[in-house]
């Protein structure tokens, strides 16, 4: 009961304090708001870049060309062999531990012929006499991998399968793409982390200035016999409140700004190739992240600043 009274008093006092020291609180809140807006922009950019690179990576396909004279039975055998490979993207049933359907598509050579013939009159005249038996075109399996970093190994494993003639996946270019995307991803993550750290210092220092101006208050608290935790708690709650208030505008900007941006561009940036992340639940998760960053940094900033005057 006593602890509850002390806690509720601390919460009440921290609310009072935010409003009584309004100009200083406003300075802290403004600093938190500005830095969190920068963090929000960095998070949105970084996650969209990551999303885009992942989409591109998912689109990378291994094409396994089968022997020209392969029988239908042997085509099925190749499929069974492909199912045993690990690094193939699972389409369904992954959560149950065993994959029900893997991302493997069979493309019949006659379908390829038809497409080629439809695309050009010259090809049409050349290929119209070919039947399934004498067509020089090969049946293919199009396989999407799970981890693009292991694509070369998976391609080698596919090549070892009987009746697989050639395996192509854009060797060289894919590796380059992977390393570029990897660098972009690491760069954006580093940028966000660095920004969060800078934000933490900025917010902590602003709150520190707010609290330094209340050195006297802390001295009086010590004088009347307030325990360290009793002194710290209202300031910690105050830091939490400042962080919470400071994250309101960044959250509004994230939710409404990003949704408006998404709608304005129709979900794609400049070209259909670059897809933006759908606003729901993305904006809400980002907002939650901003709120947590604001509150946690506010709390720790305050705790650090008060500690200085406690002679602990």
């Amino acid at each position, binding site marked *: 009961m*006593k602890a509850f009274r002390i806690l509720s*008093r601390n919460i009440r006092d921290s609310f009072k304090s935010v409003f009584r020291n309004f100009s200083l609180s406003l300075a802290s809140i403004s600093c938190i708001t500005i830095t969190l807006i920068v963090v929000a922009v960095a998070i949105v950019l970084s996650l969209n870049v990551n999303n885009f690179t992942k989409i591109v990576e998912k689109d990378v396909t291994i094409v396994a060309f089968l022997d020209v004279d392969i029988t239908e039975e042997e085509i099925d055998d190749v499929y069974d062999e492909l199912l045993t490979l690990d690094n193939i993207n699972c389409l369904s049933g992954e959560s149950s531990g065993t994959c029900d359907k893997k991302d493997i598509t069979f493309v019949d050579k006659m379908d390829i012929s038809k497409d080629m013939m439809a695309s050009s009159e010259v090809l049409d005249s050349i290929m119209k006499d070919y039947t399934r038996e004498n067509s020089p075109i090969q049946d293919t399996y199009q396989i999407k991998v799970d981890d693009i970093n292991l694509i070369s190994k998976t391609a080698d494993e596919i090549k070892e399968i009987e009746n697989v003639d050639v395996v192509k996946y854009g060797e060289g270019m894919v590796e380059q793409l992977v390393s570029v995307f990897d660098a972009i991803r690491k760069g954006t993550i580093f940028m966000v982390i660095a920004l969060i750290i800078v934000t933490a210092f900025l917010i902590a220092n602003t709150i520190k200035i707010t609290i330094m101006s209340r050195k006297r*208050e802390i*001295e*009086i608290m010590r004088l009347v016999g307030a325990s360290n935790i*009793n002194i710290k708690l209202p300031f910690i709650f105050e830091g939490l409140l400042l962080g919470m208030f400071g994250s309101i505008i960044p959250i509004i900007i994230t939710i409404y700004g990003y949704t408006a941006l998404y709608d304005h561009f129709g979900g794609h940036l400049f070209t259909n190739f670059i897809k933006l992340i759908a606003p729901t639940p993305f904006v809400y998760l980002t907002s939650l992240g901003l709120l947590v960053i604001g509150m946690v940094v506010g709390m720790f900033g305050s705790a650090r600043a008060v500690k200085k005057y406690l*002679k602990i």
Partner: protein
Amino acid sequence: MDLIRMLNVKKTYKTGTTAIYDLNLSIEKGEFVFIIGATGCGKSTLIKMLYREEKPSSGKILVGGLDVGKIKNRKVYKLRRKIGVVFQNYQLLPNSTAYENVAFALEVLGLPKDEIHTKVMKVLDLVGLKNKAKQYPNHLSGGEQQRVAIARAIVNGPKILICDEPTGNLDPKTSMEIMEVLEAINELGTTILMVTHDIEIVKKMKKRVILLDSGRVVKDYKKGEYKRESI
């Protein structure tokens, strides 16, 4: 019975300055003691050691049987709850009303709201500020602010009230009013230690007077003995 005992206390600051030399002192429960002396004689250091704002470099300070020098920093609050302190500059929270300033000392103890209200109003009545409970410090005169500070210092019934030049910023008439309040508190059983430069007050009050010079007790006048020595 001695409420405060100082045995061979010495205080040397980190800068190398020694403020108190080999000080021995006993103060009984219920006494009203003035500590006087020239600026820099060690008065403030002496009382700061009593409420453990400073630690003695050597020797022993016992307050109510408790060895003050041995209290850990994080446990100092327990001592502070037994000692009330009043300063020359009042040390009030500027953004809190007179009532809130006094109530604050009880809130940190986690007392129920009703009990806090009763005690605060009682003590504000004692210092004559019952009708100014809702005023903020900047709307109160110097004397009234000091009364609030006294009310805050005694609201949780401390055994000792330490006053560091409480009349230093006040005119003679207001100073005497503050002294009347302090005397009333002393009559209720609280031991009072008051550092002052105001010799007129000391003479009028006729209490025990300890004269310090260069960190040493040079004279200890019993109640009513002190007359007109200059400091």
